[in-house]
Protein backbone atom coordinates (compact mmCIF):
# COMPACT_ATOMS: atom_id res chain seq x y z
CA UNK A 1 0.00 0.00 0.00
CA UNK A 2 1.46 3.36 -1.06
CA UNK A 3 0.82 6.14 1.41
CA UNK A 4 1.68 8.93 -1.05
CA UNK A 5 -0.98 7.66 -3.49
CA UNK A 6 -3.58 7.63 -0.72
CA UNK A 7 -2.58 11.12 0.34
CA UNK A 8 -2.56 12.53 -3.18
CA UNK A 9 -6.07 11.07 -3.83
CA UNK A 10 -7.23 12.56 -0.52
CA UNK A 11 -5.78 15.97 -1.37
CA UNK A 12 -7.31 15.94 -4.84
CA UNK A 13 -10.71 15.03 -3.37
CA UNK A 14 -10.35 17.80 -0.78
CA UNK A 15 -9.32 20.41 -3.37
CA UNK A 16 -12.16 19.39 -5.64
CA UNK A 17 -14.56 19.59 -2.70
CA UNK A 18 -13.65 23.02 -1.37
CA UNK A 19 -13.77 24.48 -4.88
CA UNK A 20 -17.40 23.42 -5.24
CA UNK A 21 -20.03 26.14 -4.90
CA UNK A 22 -22.33 23.65 -3.19
CA UNK A 23 -19.90 23.47 -0.25
CA UNK A 24 -20.41 27.17 0.43
CA UNK A 25 -24.11 26.90 -0.39
CA UNK A 26 -24.52 24.38 2.42
CA UNK A 27 -22.52 26.62 4.73
CA UNK A 28 -24.93 29.42 3.87
CA UNK A 29 -27.79 27.07 4.80
CA UNK A 30 -26.11 26.50 8.17
CA UNK A 31 -25.85 30.25 8.66
CA UNK A 32 -29.53 30.60 7.80
CA UNK A 33 -30.38 27.88 10.36
CA UNK A 34 -28.43 29.86 12.98
CA UNK A 35 -30.61 32.89 12.26
CA UNK A 36 -33.75 30.78 12.72
CA UNK A 37 -32.20 29.51 15.94
CA UNK A 38 -31.84 33.08 17.16
CA UNK A 39 -35.49 33.85 16.43
CA UNK A 40 -36.72 30.65 18.13
CA UNK A 41 -34.59 31.26 21.22
CA UNK A 42 -35.91 34.81 21.38
CA UNK A 43 -39.49 33.50 21.22
CA UNK A 44 -38.99 31.13 24.12
CA UNK A 45 -38.36 33.83 26.73
CA UNK A 46 -37.01 31.18 29.13
CA UNK A 47 -33.91 28.97 28.70
CA UNK A 48 -32.71 30.91 25.67
CA UNK A 49 -29.10 29.76 26.12
CA UNK A 50 -30.08 26.10 26.16
CA UNK A 51 -32.25 26.46 23.06
CA UNK A 52 -29.45 28.32 21.25
CA UNK A 53 -27.01 25.49 22.01
CA UNK A 54 -29.46 22.66 21.20
CA UNK A 55 -30.58 24.06 17.87
CA UNK A 56 -27.08 25.12 16.86
CA UNK A 57 -25.59 21.70 17.53
CA UNK A 58 -28.44 20.05 15.61
CA UNK A 59 -27.90 22.53 12.75
CA UNK A 60 -24.21 21.57 12.52
CA UNK A 61 -25.09 17.89 12.29
CA UNK A 62 -27.91 18.53 9.84
CA UNK A 63 -25.64 20.57 7.56
CA UNK A 64 -22.94 17.90 7.81
CA UNK A 65 -25.52 15.30 6.83
CA UNK A 66 -26.44 17.34 3.76
CA UNK A 67 -22.75 17.62 2.85
CA UNK A 68 -22.50 13.83 2.89
CA UNK A 69 -25.80 12.99 1.21
CA UNK A 70 -25.91 15.64 -1.49
CA UNK A 71 -22.31 16.60 -1.93
CA UNK A 72 -20.01 13.63 -1.37
CA UNK A 73 -22.38 11.11 -2.98
CA UNK A 74 -22.94 13.20 -6.07
CA UNK A 75 -19.27 14.13 -6.41
CA UNK A 76 -18.32 10.43 -6.53
CA UNK A 77 -20.88 9.72 -9.27
CA UNK A 78 -19.97 12.89 -11.16
CA UNK A 79 -16.34 11.77 -11.25
CA UNK A 80 -17.51 8.41 -12.50
CA UNK A 81 -19.54 10.00 -15.30
CA UNK A 82 -16.84 12.51 -16.25
CA UNK A 83 -14.34 9.64 -16.53
CA UNK A 84 -12.14 11.26 -13.87
CA UNK A 85 -12.42 8.00 -11.98
CA UNK A 86 -10.80 6.20 -14.91
CA UNK A 87 -7.87 8.60 -14.68
CA UNK A 88 -7.42 7.73 -11.01
CA UNK A 89 -7.76 4.01 -11.63
CA UNK A 90 -5.08 4.07 -14.35
CA UNK A 91 -2.57 5.57 -11.97
CA UNK A 92 -3.57 4.23 -8.56
CA UNK A 93 -4.50 0.89 -7.14
CA UNK A 94 -8.18 0.57 -6.34
CA UNK A 95 -7.86 -0.03 -2.61
CA UNK A 96 -5.61 3.02 -2.36
CA UNK A 97 -8.16 5.06 -4.23
CA UNK A 98 -10.90 3.93 -1.80
CA UNK A 99 -8.78 4.89 1.22
CA UNK A 100 -7.72 8.19 -0.35
CA UNK A 101 -11.25 9.07 -1.39
CA UNK A 102 -12.56 8.37 2.12
CA UNK A 103 -9.75 10.39 3.66
CA UNK A 104 -10.50 13.29 1.30
CA UNK A 105 -14.24 13.11 2.05
CA UNK A 106 -13.52 13.06 5.79
CA UNK A 107 -11.25 16.08 5.40
CA UNK A 108 -14.02 17.95 3.54
CA UNK A 109 -16.50 16.96 6.24
CA UNK A 110 -14.03 17.84 8.99
CA UNK A 111 -13.21 21.26 7.54
CA UNK A 112 -16.90 22.00 7.04
CA UNK A 113 -17.77 21.02 10.62
CA UNK A 114 -14.79 22.98 11.96
CA UNK A 115 -15.94 26.04 10.03
CA UNK A 116 -19.51 25.68 11.34
CA UNK A 117 -18.31 25.03 14.90
CA UNK A 118 -16.10 28.15 14.82
CA UNK A 119 -18.95 30.35 13.58
CA UNK A 120 -21.30 28.79 16.12
CA UNK A 121 -18.82 29.36 18.97
CA UNK A 122 -18.45 33.04 18.09
CA UNK A 123 -22.23 33.26 17.90
CA UNK A 124 -22.56 31.70 21.38
CA UNK A 125 -19.82 33.91 22.80
CA UNK A 126 -21.72 36.98 21.68
CA UNK A 127 -24.84 35.61 23.35
CA UNK A 128 -22.99 34.59 26.55
CA UNK A 129 -24.15 31.02 26.02
CA UNK A 130 -20.82 29.36 25.24
CA UNK A 131 -19.53 26.29 27.03
CA UNK A 132 -16.49 24.26 25.91
CA UNK A 133 -18.35 20.92 25.95
CA UNK A 134 -20.01 22.00 22.74
CA UNK A 135 -16.80 20.99 20.96
CA UNK A 136 -17.12 17.49 22.39
CA UNK A 137 -20.66 17.24 20.99
CA UNK A 138 -19.44 18.59 17.63
CA UNK A 139 -16.64 16.02 17.59
CA UNK A 140 -19.13 13.22 18.29
CA UNK A 141 -21.32 14.51 15.44
CA UNK A 142 -18.21 14.39 13.25
CA UNK A 143 -17.58 10.76 14.24
CA UNK A 144 -21.20 9.93 13.49
CA UNK A 145 -21.01 11.54 10.06
CA UNK A 146 -17.60 9.99 9.32
CA UNK A 147 -19.16 6.55 9.88
CA UNK A 148 -21.98 7.52 7.55
CA UNK A 149 -19.45 8.80 5.03
CA UNK A 150 -17.74 5.39 4.93
CA UNK A 151 -21.12 3.71 4.41
CA UNK A 152 -21.94 6.15 1.60
CA UNK A 153 -18.62 5.35 -0.08
CA UNK A 154 -19.41 1.64 0.09
CA UNK A 155 -22.92 2.28 -1.29
CA UNK A 156 -21.54 4.53 -4.07
CA UNK A 157 -19.44 1.64 -5.30
CA UNK A 158 -22.27 -0.84 -4.91
CA UNK A 159 -25.28 1.06 -6.25
CA UNK A 160 -25.90 2.31 -9.79
CA UNK A 161 -27.17 5.84 -9.06
CA UNK A 162 -26.35 8.76 -6.80
CA UNK A 163 -29.99 9.35 -5.85
CA UNK A 164 -30.42 5.74 -4.72
CA UNK A 165 -27.17 5.94 -2.81
CA UNK A 166 -28.24 9.17 -1.10
CA UNK A 167 -31.62 7.70 -0.15
CA UNK A 168 -30.00 4.57 1.27
CA UNK A 169 -27.53 6.73 3.18
CA UNK A 170 -30.32 8.82 4.64
CA UNK A 171 -32.23 5.67 5.58
CA UNK A 172 -29.17 4.26 7.34
CA UNK A 173 -28.68 7.53 9.20
CA UNK A 174 -32.28 7.48 10.44
CA UNK A 175 -32.16 3.74 11.17
CA UNK A 176 -28.88 4.04 13.05
CA UNK A 177 -30.20 6.98 15.07
CA UNK A 178 -33.45 5.31 16.15
CA UNK A 179 -32.39 1.65 16.41
CA UNK A 180 -31.87 1.94 20.18
CA UNK A 181 -35.29 3.43 20.93
CA UNK A 182 -36.93 1.04 18.42
CA UNK A 183 -35.43 -1.91 20.27
CA UNK A 184 -36.69 -0.65 23.62
CA UNK A 185 -40.20 -0.07 22.17
CA UNK A 186 -40.28 -3.61 20.73
CA UNK A 187 -38.95 -5.11 23.97
CA UNK A 188 -41.67 -3.39 25.98
CA UNK A 189 -44.30 -5.07 23.77
CA UNK A 190 -43.28 -8.66 24.69
CA UNK A 191 -42.44 -9.71 21.12
CA UNK A 192 -39.26 -11.81 21.43
CA UNK A 193 -38.98 -12.65 17.71
CA UNK A 194 -39.21 -9.03 16.58
CA UNK A 195 -36.86 -8.00 19.36
CA UNK A 196 -34.29 -10.56 18.16
CA UNK A 197 -34.56 -9.25 14.58
CA UNK A 198 -34.19 -5.67 15.81
CA UNK A 199 -31.20 -6.69 17.91
CA UNK A 200 -29.60 -8.17 14.79
CA UNK A 201 -30.26 -4.91 12.92
CA UNK A 202 -28.65 -3.06 15.78
CA UNK A 203 -25.42 -4.98 15.21
CA UNK A 204 -25.52 -4.40 11.45
CA UNK A 205 -26.57 -0.74 11.44
CA UNK A 206 -24.17 1.74 13.04
CA UNK A 207 -25.21 2.63 16.61
CA UNK A 208 -25.38 6.34 15.85
CA UNK A 209 -27.47 6.99 18.97
CA UNK A 210 -24.36 6.28 21.03
CA UNK A 211 -22.78 9.40 19.53
CA UNK A 212 -25.67 11.59 20.57
CA UNK A 213 -24.27 13.64 23.45
CA UNK A 214 -25.72 17.04 22.55
CA UNK A 215 -28.07 17.03 25.54
CA UNK A 216 -25.32 16.65 28.14
CA UNK A 217 -23.04 19.05 26.24
CA UNK A 218 -25.76 21.72 26.25
CA UNK A 219 -25.77 21.47 30.07
CA UNK A 220 -21.98 21.66 30.23
CA UNK A 221 -21.43 17.98 31.02
CA UNK A 222 -18.89 15.91 29.15
CA UNK A 223 -18.68 12.14 28.67
CA UNK A 224 -16.28 9.99 30.67
CA UNK A 225 -12.82 9.25 29.25
CA UNK A 226 -13.66 5.54 28.86
CA UNK A 227 -16.84 6.39 26.92
CA UNK A 228 -14.89 8.78 24.73
CA UNK A 229 -12.30 6.10 24.03
CA UNK A 230 -14.90 3.41 23.29
CA UNK A 231 -16.84 5.71 20.95
CA UNK A 232 -13.65 6.46 19.00
CA UNK A 233 -12.77 2.78 18.88
CA UNK A 234 -16.25 1.86 17.67
CA UNK A 235 -16.10 4.53 14.94
CA UNK A 236 -12.64 3.39 13.77
CA UNK A 237 -13.71 -0.28 13.74
CA UNK A 238 -16.95 0.40 11.84
CA UNK A 239 -15.23 2.67 9.32
CA UNK A 240 -12.48 0.07 8.79
CA UNK A 241 -15.04 -2.66 8.07
CA UNK A 242 -16.89 -0.41 5.63
CA UNK A 243 -13.65 0.55 3.84
CA UNK A 244 -12.56 -3.07 3.67
CA UNK A 245 -15.92 -4.04 2.13
CA UNK A 246 -15.79 -1.05 -0.24
CA UNK A 247 -12.27 -1.98 -1.37
CA UNK A 248 -13.31 -5.62 -1.79
CA UNK A 249 -16.28 -4.74 -4.01
CA UNK A 250 -14.29 -2.13 -5.91
CA UNK A 251 -11.44 -4.55 -6.66
CA UNK A 252 -13.82 -7.09 -8.17
CA UNK A 253 -16.08 -4.74 -10.07
CA UNK A 254 -15.99 -3.94 -13.77
CA UNK A 255 -16.45 -0.23 -14.68
Amino acid at each position, binding site marked *: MKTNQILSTALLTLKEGVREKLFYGIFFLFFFLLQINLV*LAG*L*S*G*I*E*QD*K*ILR*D*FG*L*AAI*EFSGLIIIIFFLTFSFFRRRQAKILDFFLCRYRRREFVLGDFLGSTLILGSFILLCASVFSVFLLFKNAFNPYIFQAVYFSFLKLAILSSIILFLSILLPSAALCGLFGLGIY*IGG*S*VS*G*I*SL*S*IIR*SGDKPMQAAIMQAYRYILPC*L*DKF*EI*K*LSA*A*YGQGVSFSYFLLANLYAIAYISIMLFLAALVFENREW
Partner: protein
Amino acid sequence: MLVLIIVWICGHPAFSSRENLEPLYLAPNKELAKFMGLGMNALAADIFFLKVINYIGEGAFPRGKWNLDWIYQNLGLALELDPGFEGACFLGGMIIPNDEESRILAVKLLEKAGNRTPSNWKIPFWIGFNYYQARRYQEAGDYFNLSAALPGAPGHLAGMRILSYYQAGNSQASLVILNSLLESASKKDSGWIKAKIEWLEKIAYLEEAVEKFKQRFARPPEDLNELTKTGIIGSIPQDPWLGGYYLDAKNKKVVSRMRSD
Protein backbone atom coordinates in the same frame (compact mmCIF):
# COMPACT_ATOMS: atom_id res chain seq x y z
CA MET B 1 -48.48 38.74 -13.70
CA LEU B 2 -47.60 35.47 -11.98
CA VAL B 3 -46.83 37.36 -8.76
CA LEU B 4 -50.27 38.99 -8.94
CA ILE B 5 -51.87 35.58 -9.42
CA ILE B 6 -50.05 34.26 -6.33
CA VAL B 7 -51.10 37.30 -4.27
CA TRP B 8 -54.71 36.87 -5.46
CA ILE B 9 -54.72 33.15 -4.58
CA CYS B 10 -53.24 33.83 -1.12
CA GLY B 11 -55.88 36.44 -0.42
CA HIS B 12 -58.80 34.36 -1.75
CA PRO B 13 -61.18 33.39 1.08
CA ALA B 14 -61.44 29.78 -0.09
CA PHE B 15 -57.65 29.46 0.09
CA SER B 16 -57.04 31.41 3.30
CA SER B 17 -60.01 29.88 5.17
CA ARG B 18 -57.91 26.79 5.78
CA GLU B 19 -56.24 28.85 8.51
CA ASN B 20 -59.59 29.03 10.29
CA LEU B 21 -59.84 25.27 10.66
CA GLU B 22 -59.96 24.31 14.29
CA PRO B 23 -56.55 22.94 15.28
CA LEU B 24 -56.37 19.40 16.59
CA TYR B 25 -54.52 19.37 19.88
CA LEU B 26 -52.84 16.02 20.14
CA ALA B 27 -49.48 15.09 21.61
CA PRO B 28 -47.55 11.93 20.77
CA ASN B 29 -46.58 9.39 23.42
CA LYS B 30 -43.06 9.55 24.78
CA GLU B 31 -41.67 6.60 22.78
CA LEU B 32 -42.95 8.05 19.53
CA ALA B 33 -41.56 11.47 20.48
CA LYS B 34 -38.12 9.94 21.08
CA PHE B 35 -38.35 8.04 17.80
CA MET B 36 -39.38 11.11 15.81
CA GLY B 37 -36.59 13.14 17.37
CA LEU B 38 -34.04 10.79 15.72
CA GLY B 39 -32.31 10.49 19.05
CA MET B 40 -31.74 14.26 19.26
CA ASN B 41 -33.64 14.46 22.53
CA ALA B 42 -32.51 17.98 23.41
CA LEU B 43 -33.81 19.36 20.13
CA ALA B 44 -37.10 17.43 20.36
CA ALA B 45 -37.60 18.65 23.96
CA ASP B 46 -37.08 22.25 22.83
CA ILE B 47 -39.66 21.80 20.08
CA PHE B 48 -42.36 20.56 22.50
CA PHE B 49 -41.49 23.40 24.87
CA LEU B 50 -41.67 25.99 22.07
CA LYS B 51 -45.04 24.59 20.97
CA VAL B 52 -46.44 25.47 24.39
CA ILE B 53 -44.78 28.91 24.36
CA ASN B 54 -46.30 29.54 20.93
CA TYR B 55 -49.76 28.36 22.07
CA ILE B 56 -49.71 30.66 25.09
CA GLY B 57 -48.07 33.52 23.26
CA GLU B 58 -50.31 33.64 20.18
CA GLY B 59 -53.27 34.47 22.43
CA ALA B 60 -55.78 32.48 20.38
CA PHE B 61 -57.52 31.48 23.62
CA PRO B 62 -57.99 33.44 26.83
CA ARG B 63 -56.15 32.09 29.83
CA GLY B 64 -59.22 30.39 31.29
CA LYS B 65 -59.82 28.43 28.07
CA TRP B 66 -56.36 27.02 27.61
CA ASN B 67 -56.19 23.34 26.74
CA LEU B 68 -54.35 22.42 29.93
CA ASP B 69 -54.18 18.69 29.17
CA TRP B 70 -52.40 19.38 25.89
CA ILE B 71 -50.09 21.96 27.48
CA TYR B 72 -49.01 19.61 30.24
CA GLN B 73 -48.67 16.64 27.85
CA ASN B 74 -46.22 18.67 25.79
CA LEU B 75 -44.31 19.91 28.80
CA GLY B 76 -44.27 16.35 30.15
CA LEU B 77 -42.80 15.18 26.85
CA ALA B 78 -40.17 17.91 26.98
CA LEU B 79 -39.18 16.67 30.43
CA GLU B 80 -39.21 13.00 29.34
CA LEU B 81 -36.78 13.87 26.58
CA ASP B 82 -34.68 16.23 28.67
CA PRO B 83 -35.12 15.51 32.40
CA GLY B 84 -33.01 18.51 33.38
CA PHE B 85 -35.12 21.00 31.40
CA GLU B 86 -35.67 23.60 34.12
CA GLY B 87 -37.44 26.02 31.76
CA ALA B 88 -40.23 23.48 31.12
CA CYS B 89 -40.66 23.03 34.89
CA PHE B 90 -40.74 26.77 35.46
CA LEU B 91 -43.27 27.35 32.67
CA GLY B 92 -45.55 24.49 33.69
CA GLY B 93 -45.04 24.81 37.42
CA MET B 94 -44.91 28.55 38.00
CA ILE B 95 -46.13 30.59 35.04
CA ILE B 96 -49.16 28.65 33.79
CA PRO B 97 -50.97 27.62 37.00
CA ASN B 98 -53.60 30.08 38.17
CA ASP B 99 -56.46 27.88 39.38
CA GLU B 100 -57.07 24.60 41.14
CA GLU B 101 -57.10 22.50 37.95
CA SER B 102 -53.85 23.90 36.58
CA ARG B 103 -52.15 23.65 39.97
CA ILE B 104 -52.94 19.93 40.19
CA LEU B 105 -51.37 19.41 36.75
CA ALA B 106 -48.42 21.63 37.66
CA VAL B 107 -47.72 19.68 40.85
CA LYS B 108 -47.91 16.38 38.90
CA LEU B 109 -45.44 17.70 36.33
CA LEU B 110 -43.07 19.02 38.98
CA GLU B 111 -43.26 15.82 41.02
CA LYS B 112 -42.25 13.81 37.94
CA ALA B 113 -39.40 16.23 37.28
CA GLY B 114 -38.39 16.07 40.94
CA ASN B 115 -38.16 12.27 40.80
CA ARG B 116 -35.74 12.54 37.89
CA THR B 117 -33.63 15.36 39.30
CA PRO B 118 -33.91 14.85 43.08
CA SER B 119 -30.99 17.14 43.87
CA ASN B 120 -32.52 20.27 42.31
CA TRP B 121 -33.87 22.41 45.18
CA LYS B 122 -35.98 24.56 42.86
CA ILE B 123 -38.41 21.76 41.97
CA PRO B 124 -39.68 21.05 45.54
CA PHE B 125 -39.70 24.80 46.15
CA TRP B 126 -41.96 25.34 43.15
CA ILE B 127 -44.22 22.45 44.26
CA GLY B 128 -44.40 24.05 47.70
CA PHE B 129 -45.26 27.38 46.11
CA ASN B 130 -48.20 25.79 44.25
CA TYR B 131 -49.47 24.19 47.46
CA TYR B 132 -49.05 27.51 49.19
CA GLN B 133 -51.14 29.24 46.54
CA ALA B 134 -53.76 26.53 46.93
CA ARG B 135 -53.71 27.31 50.69
CA ARG B 136 -52.56 23.79 51.48
CA TYR B 137 -50.03 25.03 53.97
CA GLN B 138 -49.08 21.68 55.48
CA GLU B 139 -47.92 20.27 52.10
CA ALA B 140 -46.35 23.60 51.18
CA GLY B 141 -44.33 23.60 54.37
CA ASP B 142 -43.19 20.02 53.79
CA TYR B 143 -41.94 20.82 50.31
CA PHE B 144 -40.23 24.04 51.42
CA ASN B 145 -38.51 22.00 54.07
CA LEU B 146 -37.45 19.38 51.51
CA SER B 147 -36.16 22.13 49.22
CA ALA B 148 -34.23 23.84 52.03
CA ALA B 149 -32.36 20.60 52.75
CA LEU B 150 -31.03 20.30 49.18
CA PRO B 151 -27.64 21.65 48.07
CA GLY B 152 -27.68 25.20 46.74
CA ALA B 153 -30.97 26.21 48.39
CA PRO B 154 -31.02 29.74 49.81
CA GLY B 155 -30.72 29.80 53.61
CA HIS B 156 -33.99 31.54 54.37
CA LEU B 157 -35.98 28.66 52.81
CA ALA B 158 -35.82 26.79 56.10
CA GLY B 159 -38.08 29.41 57.66
CA MET B 160 -40.66 29.04 54.91
CA ARG B 161 -42.17 26.00 56.56
CA ILE B 162 -43.03 28.02 59.67
CA LEU B 163 -44.44 30.76 57.48
CA SER B 164 -46.65 28.29 55.63
CA TYR B 165 -48.02 26.82 58.82
CA TYR B 166 -48.79 30.37 59.94
CA GLN B 167 -51.41 30.35 57.18
CA ALA B 168 -50.03 33.46 55.57
CA GLY B 169 -52.93 34.69 53.46
CA ASN B 170 -51.77 38.30 53.73
CA SER B 171 -49.65 40.36 51.40
CA GLN B 172 -46.61 40.63 53.71
CA ALA B 173 -46.27 36.84 53.81
CA SER B 174 -46.66 36.60 50.04
CA LEU B 175 -43.90 39.18 49.69
CA VAL B 176 -41.51 36.99 51.67
CA ILE B 177 -42.25 34.06 49.37
CA LEU B 178 -41.96 36.12 46.21
CA ASN B 179 -38.60 37.45 47.32
CA SER B 180 -37.36 33.90 47.73
CA LEU B 181 -38.86 33.01 44.37
CA LEU B 182 -36.89 35.84 42.84
CA GLU B 183 -33.71 34.16 44.06
CA SER B 184 -34.72 30.87 42.43
CA ALA B 185 -35.44 32.44 39.05
CA SER B 186 -32.79 33.30 36.50
CA LYS B 187 -32.12 36.96 35.67
CA LYS B 188 -34.04 36.72 32.42
CA ASP B 189 -37.13 35.20 34.07
CA SER B 190 -37.28 37.54 37.03
CA GLY B 191 -39.16 40.40 35.35
CA TRP B 192 -42.66 39.18 36.16
CA ILE B 193 -41.69 38.32 39.75
CA LYS B 194 -40.30 41.82 40.26
CA ALA B 195 -43.53 43.28 38.91
CA LYS B 196 -45.54 41.08 41.26
CA ILE B 197 -43.37 42.15 44.21
CA GLU B 198 -43.87 45.81 43.34
CA TRP B 199 -47.61 45.20 43.04
CA LEU B 200 -47.78 43.46 46.42
CA GLU B 201 -45.57 46.03 48.15
CA LYS B 202 -48.04 48.72 47.14
CA ILE B 203 -50.95 46.62 48.44
CA ALA B 204 -49.09 46.16 51.73
CA TYR B 205 -48.50 49.92 51.88
CA LEU B 206 -52.22 50.62 51.32
CA GLU B 207 -53.24 47.94 53.85
CA GLU B 208 -51.04 49.64 56.41
CA ALA B 209 -52.68 52.97 55.62
CA VAL B 210 -56.15 51.40 56.01
CA GLU B 211 -55.11 50.09 59.44
CA LYS B 212 -53.93 53.62 60.42
CA PHE B 213 -57.27 55.01 59.23
CA LYS B 214 -59.15 52.46 61.36
CA GLN B 215 -57.09 53.37 64.40
CA ARG B 216 -57.70 57.08 63.90
CA PHE B 217 -61.41 57.06 62.96
CA ALA B 218 -62.57 53.74 64.51
CA ARG B 219 -64.07 52.65 61.18
CA PRO B 220 -62.73 51.44 57.84
CA PRO B 221 -62.50 53.99 55.01
CA GLU B 222 -65.28 54.09 52.39
CA ASP B 223 -62.73 53.95 49.58
CA LEU B 224 -59.03 54.54 49.02
CA ASN B 225 -59.54 58.21 48.16
CA GLU B 226 -60.53 58.77 51.80
CA LEU B 227 -56.95 57.86 52.74
CA THR B 228 -55.60 60.74 50.66
CA LYS B 229 -58.33 63.17 51.75
CA THR B 230 -57.47 62.56 55.41
CA GLY B 231 -53.76 62.93 54.66
CA ILE B 232 -52.79 59.40 55.75
CA ILE B 233 -51.13 58.91 52.37
CA GLY B 234 -50.13 61.47 49.76
CA SER B 235 -51.53 59.61 46.74
CA ILE B 236 -52.76 56.19 45.72
CA PRO B 237 -49.80 54.33 44.15
CA GLN B 238 -50.06 53.29 40.53
CA ASP B 239 -50.75 49.61 39.89
CA PRO B 240 -47.79 48.25 37.85
CA TRP B 241 -50.25 45.97 36.02
CA LEU B 242 -52.55 48.92 35.32
CA GLY B 243 -55.64 47.30 36.83
CA GLY B 244 -55.89 49.91 39.59
CA TYR B 245 -56.20 49.40 43.37
CA TYR B 246 -59.50 49.72 45.20
CA LEU B 247 -61.06 48.86 48.54
CA ASP B 248 -63.31 45.81 48.46
CA ALA B 249 -66.73 46.94 49.66
CA LYS B 250 -67.51 43.71 51.51
CA ASN B 251 -64.41 42.85 53.48
CA LYS B 252 -62.66 46.24 53.28
CA LYS B 253 -59.45 44.65 51.95
CA VAL B 254 -57.18 46.34 49.40
CA VAL B 255 -57.38 44.55 46.08
CA SER B 256 -56.65 45.32 42.45
CA ARG B 257 -58.66 44.67 39.33
CA MET B 258 -56.09 42.16 38.13
CA ARG B 259 -56.18 39.47 40.77
CA SER B 260 -52.80 38.01 41.59
CA ASP B 261 -52.46 34.37 42.41
